[in-house]
C-alpha cells in the first residue's frame, strides 16, 4: 500500500491510537500492520483506505458492544470494498498467547473484523499448529460482557486520564516521601516488556515490579540452580524419548508446556504392526493425573513415598552407571536410599533405553526429588546438545518468583511500600492470608485488570485492561523463537488499555522525559526490533509468520554440573507433615489457575478424568472415602493449616490411599456472573511461600449433599461389549491386534451406494489421544455450541458435539490402581444411519459425500433420531440456549455456522462449513476435488496428539485411507451394520502381557 494515502488510520494498533484517530494519523507515517494470512492475496494492491474503514467498523462494533452508551459512530456499508476484507471470507492473523511464561504461537480467525476462533500457528515450534483448550477458550473472555467496562475512581465512573492521574499523584507523593511503589505483575515471557520494566526500574528507583504469579513451583529450577548454576528449567524433547519416567510430573495435563509435550509425546505413540515401536511412559504419582492416565505403567505412591522412590531409582541407576556419573559427593545420599520393587523396575526400564530415557519430576515436588531426577538424567546421558534435554531449550527462571515475593513480604512488613499497583494479578484470590493482610495495609492500592475481580474491589482506582488479543506485545519461546503479539481487534470495550501501555503512560505521566520517543507501547515494541526489520516487508513477514525468522537461535545455557551442589540439593527433601490425609492442591484441568474462570466454555468443559463440570470436588478413592465415611456427592470440609474448603466428595479410583485432590481455579467471588460462587477456592490452603503441592488436612462431614454435574456416570461394564479396545505392543508386534476383523455383517439385498465424488471419513488414534480436551473446545468454538449450565449438564443435556468418553479398567495387579482409556465420541456419520430413516420429516439425511447431514430448519424435534442413535451423539436444544447471550458475547460466534433454536436436533457435521470452503477453494483453482489435507476439521486442527485424521477415502493416496489400513482399526459397534465413517485405532499399551481381561467402568 502506498504511503501517500491520506487519512490513514490504524486498525490493529494500540488502543490509544484507536481512541484518538487524529493523533494516530499524525504519528502514523510509514507504519503498517499485518496483512491477513491469505497466501493468494497480493499484499499491496489496493489504495483504498482500508484502515479508516475498519476503524469505523470495529469502532461501531466496540460501541455497540459496550452497550451502555449510544453509538456515536455509524456502521458504514461496504460501498467500496475493504482491503483484505471480503464479506463472509475470514482472515487469519498470527499472535501469541502467554500461558504464564510459556509462549504459544496462535493463528486467529477473524470474521468480518472480529476474532472468532483461536488455533495454533503451525510455524511456531511451541504450538506446532496445535492449541490447548484453555488458550482457545480465552476467546470467550474477550467478548465477556462482565469485563470491566470503564475506569473507576473510588467506585465512581471516571476516564482513563483521570484515573491514571490519580495513580500518578499517589505514586509521586510516595516517591517524594521516600516510599516505594510496587507494581505486581503476572509471569510473562515478553522480552520487550522485560526491557520496559528494567528501563522503568532504572529511571524510577522507587518503582519495582514484582512477579506475583497465582501459582508457582520452583522445585525443578532450584534443583537446577544448585546442581548446575542455571536458574531455570530445560524443556525436554519427548519425541526423542523411548522411556519416560514421570514422577508426579503432569506434563500432559497441568504443565504450562502441555501442548508442546503432547505434540512430541504423541509422535512416538503410534505403533503399527510393521513398525512396533513406541515410547514407554512410567508414571509415579499419588492422584490420577492426565499423564498417569496415559501411562503404560502407573506406579501409585503415597505422597511421602515419592522422594524415597526417586532416590531408589537413582540408586539403581548409579549401581549400573557407576557413582562417578554424578560425582562422589552424592554417595552419602545414595548410600541411605532404599530401592523399592517399583524403583528397581523403573530403573531397569530407564537403563534399557540409556540416553533415550528421561525422568521428569513435578516442579512442585521437593528440590531433592527434582535433583535426583536430574542426576538420573545426567547418569543416563540424556542431557546435552541434540539430546532429549538440550540446553538450548532453556526456560530461565529469571524473575525468580519465590524470593521476589519474600522480598515484597518483607518490604510490606516494614511499611516501606506506599503504593501498590495490581497489574493483571489477583492476590486477593490467589495469595496467602498473610500477604493479603499485608497488602490491604498499603496506603494506596490501584488495579489494572481485565475484570473487576476480587483484588480490583479492594483498590481505589480501577482501569480496565485489554485482552491479549487486543494488545501489542511479544513473547519468546524456549529455543529463542520470538513472536510478535499483534492485536486482532481494537479493544472490544473501548475503555480498556493494554497493561504494557498503562505502564508506559503511567511512567510518562510521572516523568514526561521518560522514553519521549514513544507514545505507545506499540512504538516501543517496534523500535526494539528495528534491527530485524529493515523494511516494512520484513515486519509484515514476521507478523504473517508469527515469528521473527531473523532473530538468532538461543544460545544453549551453560550446564556447569557441580557435584557438591547436587549433594546439597539432594538433601532438600520433603519435610513430611505426619497426617492421615494429605490434600493434593493442583491447577484445574479446565480452569487452570482460575484467571479466566468467568468462561462457560471452561466451566462446562468436563474434567478429563472425573468428567465433572461446574464444580470442584475432593477426589479420593473408595477406601479413603469409607474411612472418612462419605459417599459421592456428600459435601465435606477439607481443612488445612491455613484454611478450609467446602466441596463435595468424589470417589475416584486410582488415587492413593489417604490422598485427597482438590483443584484450584474455583471459588471465585468476583470473577463475573458465570463463575461467581462455583466451587470453593483451594488457594486457601496456601501459607506464605506455598503453592501447588501437598498439604496435611483433616476432613469433616457437613451432612449436606451436592448435585454433581458429571457428563458421564460411573457404571461397570460386566459384559463382553467391546466399545473401547486395547492391545499391547507385544501383541501388536505379533500382528494379532484385534480390529473388528471377525465381525460378520449381514448380506444386503441391494448394492452399496457408490460415492462418486468425495467420501469423507475420519480416523481416531486411541493410542495417541491423551484426552486433553483441546478438540472439545475447538469444536465448540467452531460450531457455535451453546453451554447449558450446571443444572442441565447434570441432567445429561450437555451440547458438546464431541465428547471424550473415559473408561477405567483394572490393572493386572488388581489393586487400587487403574488404567484409563479415552475415546473421543461424536457423530459417526454412518452409511446405514439409524437416525436417518426414523426422521419423519427427512430433516436428517445422507449427503452424496457420505456425511450425515442435519437440516435444522426442517427439524420438528421428535428426538427419535437421538433415541435411535447407538452412539447417543445427537444433541437436542432443550431450550433457546443462545438467547441468554448478551452483547458483545454474540460476536464470539462463527458466522459460517447456523445458530440453532430450541426444539432442534444438532450434532457433529464433520465441519461441513470447512468442507464447503475447501470445495470453493478447489473450484476457484479449477480443481474438481479437494486435495488431501486441504480440509481439516476443527477437532483435527486442534488435536496436539495428531490423533485425528480426516479426509476423503475416495482419494486413494490420502492419509485417512492409509490410516484405515492398519490392523489396529476397528469401528465402534460395527456389528450393528450401521457402517460408521469413523475408524478407531486400537489403543496400544507398551508392555508385554495384556492385563487381566479388564472390566471397564464407564
Amino acid at each position, binding site marked *: 500500500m502506498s504511503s501517500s494515502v491520506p487519512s490513514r488510520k490504524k486498525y490493529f494498533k494500540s488502543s490509544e491510537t484507536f481512541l484518538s484517530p487524529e493523533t494516530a494519523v499524525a504519528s502514523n507515517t510509514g507504519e503498517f500492520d499485518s496483512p491477513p494470512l491469505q497466501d493468494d492475496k497480493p499484499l499491496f494492491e489496493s489504495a483504498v483506505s482500508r484502515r479508516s474503514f475498519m476503524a469505523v467498523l470495529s469502532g461501531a462494533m466496540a460501541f455497540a458492544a459496550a452497550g451502555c452508551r449510544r453509538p456515536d459512530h455509524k456502521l458504514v456499508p461496504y460501498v467500496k470494498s475493504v482491503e483484505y476484507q471480503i464479506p463472509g471470507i475470514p482472515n487469519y492473523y498470527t499472535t501469541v498467547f502467554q500461558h504464564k511464561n510459556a509462549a504459544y504461537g496462535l493463528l486467529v480467525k477473524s470474521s468480518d473484523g472480529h476474532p472468532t476462533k483461536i488455533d495454533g500457528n503451525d510455524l511456531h515450534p511451541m504450538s506446532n499448529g496445535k492449541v490447548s483448550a484453555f488458550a482457545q477458550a480465552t476467546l470467550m473472555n474477550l467478548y465477556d460482557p462482565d469485563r470491566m467496562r470503564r475506569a473507576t475512581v473510588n467506585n465512581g465512573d471516571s476516564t482513563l486520564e483521570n484515573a491514571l492521574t490519580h495513580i500518578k499523584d499517589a505514586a509521586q507523593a510516595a516517591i517524594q516521601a521516600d516510599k516505594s511503589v510496587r507494581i505486581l505483575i503476572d509471569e510473562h515471557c515478553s522480552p520487550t516488556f522485560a526491557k520496559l520494566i528494567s528501563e522503568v526500574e532504572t529511571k524510577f528507583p522507587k518503582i519495582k515490579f514484582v512477579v506475583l504469579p497465582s501459582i508457582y513451583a520452583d522445585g525443578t529450577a532450584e534443583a537446577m540452580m544448585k546442581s548446575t548454576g542455571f536458574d531455570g528449567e530445560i524443556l525436554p524433547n519427548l519425541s526423542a524419548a523411548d522411556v519416560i519416567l514421570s514422577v508426579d510430573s503432569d506434563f500432559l495435563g497441568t504443565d504450562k508446556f502441555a501442548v508442546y509435550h503432547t505434540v512430541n509425546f504423541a509422535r512416538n505413540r503410534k505403533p503399527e504392526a510393521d513398525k512396533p515401536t513406541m515410547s514407554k511412559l512410567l508414571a509415579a504419582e499419588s492422584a490420577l493425573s492426565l499423564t498417569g492416565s496415559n501411562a503404560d505403567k502407573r506406579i501409585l505412591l503415597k505422597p511421602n513415598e515419592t522422594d524415597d522412590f526417586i532416590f531408589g531409582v537413582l540408586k539403581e541407576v548409579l549401581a549400573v552407571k557407576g557413582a562417578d556419573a554424578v560425582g562422589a559427593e552424592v554417595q552419602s545420599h545414595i548410600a541411605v536410599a532404599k530401592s523399592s520393587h517399583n524403583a528397581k523396575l523403573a530403573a531397569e526400564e530407564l537403563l534399557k533405553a540409556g540416553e533415550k530415557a528421561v525422568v521428569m519430576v513435578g516442579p512442585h515436588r521437593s528440590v531433592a526429588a527434582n535433583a535426583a531426577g536430574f542426576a538420573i538424567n545426567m547418569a543416563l546421558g540424556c542431557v546435552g546438545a541434540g539430546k532429549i534435554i538440550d540446553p538450548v531449550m532453556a526456560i530461565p527462571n529469571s524473575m525468580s518468583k519465590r524470593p521476589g515475593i519474600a522480598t515484597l513480604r518483607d518490604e510490606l512488613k516494614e511499611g516501606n511500600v506506599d503504593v501498590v499497583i495490581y497489574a493483571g494479578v489477583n492476590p486477593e484470590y490467589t495469595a496467602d492470608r498473610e500477604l493479603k493482610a499485608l497488602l490491604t495495609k498499603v496506603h494506596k492500592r490501584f488495579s489494572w485488570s481485565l475484570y473487576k475481580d476480587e483484588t480490583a474491589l479492594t483498590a481505589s482506582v480501577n482501569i480496565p485492561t485489554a485482552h491479549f488479543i487486543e494488545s501489542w506485545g511479544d513473547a519468546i519461546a524456549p529455543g529463542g523463537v520470538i513472536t510478535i503479539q499483534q492485536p486482532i481487534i481494537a479493544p472490544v470495550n473501548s475503555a480498556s488499555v493494554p497493561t504494557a501501555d498503562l505502564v508506559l503512560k503511567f511512567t510518562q505521566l510521572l516523568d514526561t522525559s521518560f522514553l519521549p520517543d514513544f507514545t505507545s507501547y506499540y512504538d516501543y515494541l517496534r523500535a526494539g526490533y528495528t534491527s530485524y526489520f529493515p523494511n516494512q516487508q520484513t515486519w509484515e513477514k514476521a507478523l504473517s509468520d508469527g515469528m521473527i525468522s531473523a532473530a538468532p537461535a538461543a544460545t544453549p545455557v551453560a550446564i556447569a554440573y557441580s557435584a557438591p551442589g547436587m549433594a546439597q540439593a539432594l538433601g532438600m527433601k520433603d519435610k513430611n507433615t505426619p497426617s492421615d490425609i494429605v490434600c493434593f492442591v493442583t491447577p484445574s484441568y479446565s480452569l487452570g489457575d482460575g484467571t479466566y474462570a468467568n468462561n462457560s466454555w471452561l466451566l462446562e468443559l468436563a474434567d478429563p478424568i472425573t468428567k465433572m463440570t461446574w464444580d470442584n470436588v475432593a477426589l479420593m478413592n473408595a477406601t479413603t472415602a469409607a474411612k472418612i465415611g462419605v459417599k459421592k456427592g456428600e459435601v465435606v470440609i477439607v481443612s488445612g493449616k491455613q484454611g478450609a474448603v467446602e466441596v463435595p466428595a468424589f470417589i475416584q479410583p486410582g488415587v492413593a490411599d489417604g490422598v485427597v485432590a482438590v483443584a484450584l481455579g474455583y471459588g471465585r467471588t468476583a470473577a463475573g456472573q458465570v463463575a461467581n460462587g462455583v466451587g470453593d477456592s483451594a488457594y486457601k490452603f496456601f501459607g506464605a511461600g506455598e503453592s501447588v503441592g501437598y498439604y496435611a488436612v483433616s476432613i469433616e462431614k457437613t451432612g449436606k449433599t451436592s448435585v454433581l454435574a458429571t457428563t*458421564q*456416570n460411573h*457404571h461397570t*461394564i460386566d*459384559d*463382553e*461389549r467391546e*466399545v473401547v479396545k486395547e492391545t499391547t505392543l507385544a501383541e501388536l508386534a505379533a500382528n494379532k491386534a484385534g480390529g473388528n476383523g471377525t465381525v460378520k455383517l449381514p448380506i444386503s439385498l441391494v448394492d452399496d451406494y457408490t460415492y462418486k465424488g468425495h467420501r469423507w471419513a475420519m480416523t481416531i488414534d486411541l493410542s495417541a489421544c491423551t484426552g486433553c480436551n483441546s478438540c472439545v473446545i475447538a469444536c465448540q468454538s467452531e460450531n457455535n455450541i451453546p453451554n447449558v449450565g450446571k443444572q*442441565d449438564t447434570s*441432567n*445429561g*443435556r*450437555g451440547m458438546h458435539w464431541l*465428547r471424550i*468418553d*473415559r*473408561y477405567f479398567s483394572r490393572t493386572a495387579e488388581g489393586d487400587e490402581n487403574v488404567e484409563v482409556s479415552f*475415546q473421543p*465420541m461424536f457423530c459417526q456419520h454412518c452409511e446405514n444411519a*439409524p437416525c436417518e*430413516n*426414523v*426422521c*419423519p*420429516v*427427512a430433516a436428517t439425511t445422507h449427503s452424496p459425500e457420505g456425511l450425515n447431514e442435519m437440516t435444522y430448519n*426442517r*427439524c*420438528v*424435534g*421428535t*428426538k*427419535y433420531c*437421538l*433415541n*435411535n442413535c*447407538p*452412539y*447417543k*451423539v*445427537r*444433541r*437436542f*436444544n*432443550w*431450550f*433457546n440456549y443462545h438467547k441468554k447471550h448478551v452483547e458483545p458475547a454474540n460476536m464470539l460466534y462463527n458466522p459460517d455456522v447456523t445458530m440453532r*433454536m*430450541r*426444539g*432442534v*436436533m444438532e450434532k457433529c457435521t464433520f465441519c461441513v462449513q470447512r468442507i464447503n470452503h475447501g470445495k470453493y477453494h478447489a473450484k476457484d483453482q479449477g480443481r474438481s476435488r479437494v486435495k488431501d489435507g486441504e480440509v481439516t476439521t476443527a477437532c483435527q486442527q486442534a488435536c496436539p496428539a495428531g490423533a485425528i485424521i480426516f479426509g476423503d477415502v475416495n482419494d486413494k493416496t490420502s492419509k485417512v485411507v492409509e490410516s484405515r489400513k492398519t490392523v489396529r482399526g476397528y469401528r*465402534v*459397534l460395527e456389528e*450393528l451394520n*450401521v457402517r460408521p465413517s469413523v475408524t478407531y485405532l486400537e489403543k496400544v499399551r507398551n508392555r508385554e502381557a495384556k492385563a487381566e481381561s479388564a472390566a*471397564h*467402568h*464407564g
Partner: protein
Amino acid sequence: MSATTAAISDDMRHADGYSAASMSPNEEPFREPLILGNPTMHDISRKIIGIIESEVTFKYLATLAITATLAVWGIFCIGYTIATGIGVWGLNNPVAWGWDITNFVFWIGIGHAGTLISAILFLFRQKWRTAINRSAEAMTIFAVICALTMVVIHTGRPWFAYWLFPYPNQMLMWINFRSPLVWDVFAVNTYFTVSLLFWFTGLVPDFATARNMVKSVVAKKIYHFFSLGWTGSTRHWHVYEVAYMIFAAISTPLVLSVHSVVSFDFATSVIPGWHTTIFPPYFVAGAIFSGFAMVMTLLVIAREILGLKDFITLKHLDNMNKIILATGMMVGYAYSMELFVAWYSKNPYEWATFYNRLTGDYAWAYWTMVSCNVISPQIYWFKKLRRNIPVMFIISIFVNIGMWFERFTIISTSLHHDYLPASWGYYSPTWVEISIFIGTFGIFLTLFLLFAKFMPMIAIAEVKGVMPNAQPHHHEENH
C-alpha cells in the same frame, strides 16, 4: 355361535345357583339375560334419555369441576412447555422419550378396547357388547385425543408438527416414508377418523330418540341436527345396518394395525429392548388389556352413579374380566419371551438391557409392571372374584398402572442403558410432565363426563335388539 360364547355358556352351567336367582323361572337356564329387570323398550329409552333429561346433580357437578380443573391445569402446563421449550421436562440425552411417549402409547392402548368391543365383538355377534360399546367407543375417541395431544407437544417445535403430514408445500418437501413415525401419523389418524365416524353412525338412531324425547327446545334442535333426519324407517334401518357393518369391517384390522404400527416405532429401531420382533402382537394384546381395564374402571363407576346396573350387568363385567385375564397372560408370555430371547440370543447388549431392567435403576418400574399386569389378574380364575365389584375396580386400576409402567419400562429403561456405557444416564420426570399426564386424565374424564350427560351413554337401539323379547326364541308361549 363363536367359541367365546360357547365358553361363557359352558361356564354358566357350573354357576347355575348364582345366575338363576336373577332370572325369571321360565328363562333358558343356561343363559344369563343381557338386560335385567325385564324392562319394556320404552323403559329403556326413558331410562337412558332420562340421564340427559335429569337435573344436574351436585355430585356430577363436583366431579366435573375436579376433572375440569385438572384438565385446565394440564393445558396450562402444555402452554408453559410450548412457550418455554421441552427442556421444562426431565428428558435428556440418552432418554429423549419419557413420560410423553409413554403417555402417548398408554392412551392409544386405552382406546383399543373401544374398537375391539364395537367392531370385533360386533362381527363375532357378541351381544353382550351392546351395553358397553357406546361408552367404550367414546373412551376410544377421548383417549386418542389425549394421545394425539401428547404426540404433538412432545416435539421440540410443535408449531411445525403439521410437517408430519404429506401435503404439497412451497418447500417441495415430502415426508420420509421410511420413518415409523410417519406410519404412526397415518395409523393413528386413520384410527381416530374411523373410530369417530363409527361412533357417530351408531349414535344417529339414538340421537333421533333423544330428539324425540327431550323437552328443551335447544337440545331438541341440536339432537335434530345430529340425527341427520332419522325417521326410523326400514330403509333407514337397512342403510344404517349396512353402514355399521362396513365400519365394523374397516375398524377390525385397525384394532390390530394401530398398535402394531405404534410398536414399530420401537421394533424397527436399533436400540436393545426396542428392537424386538414380538412387539406387534405384544402391543396389541397389551392395548386390549389396558383398554378393557379402563372400560372396567369407568363402567364400574358409571353403572353405580348413573344407575345402569340393569344394563351393565355382572355378566358383562365378568366377560370383560375374562378378557383381561386372557390378555394379561398374553403380555405375561411376551415379557417372558422377551427375556428368554435376550438371554438365548447371546447378544451382550440385548441381555445387558434386560438384565438391567430386572435389576438396574428402573427395576422398581419393571417389577411394578409384572406385579400389576401378570400377577394381579390371576385372581380372575375365580368366578367369585370376577364378579366382585370392589375387586375388579382395584384390579382394573392395577392393570392400568401396570400397563403404563410397561410402556415406561420399554421406552425409558431401554434408552437409559443402551450401547455405549459412557452415554448412560437416568431420567426422572419434572412436575410439568406429571401435571400434563394428570391433565390428560382431566381432559379424558371431563370429556367422558360430558358425554355421559349429554349423549345416550348406552346404545339404545342396540340394547333393544338384544332384549330377550326382541329375539325369536323357542318359548313363544311365555310371551
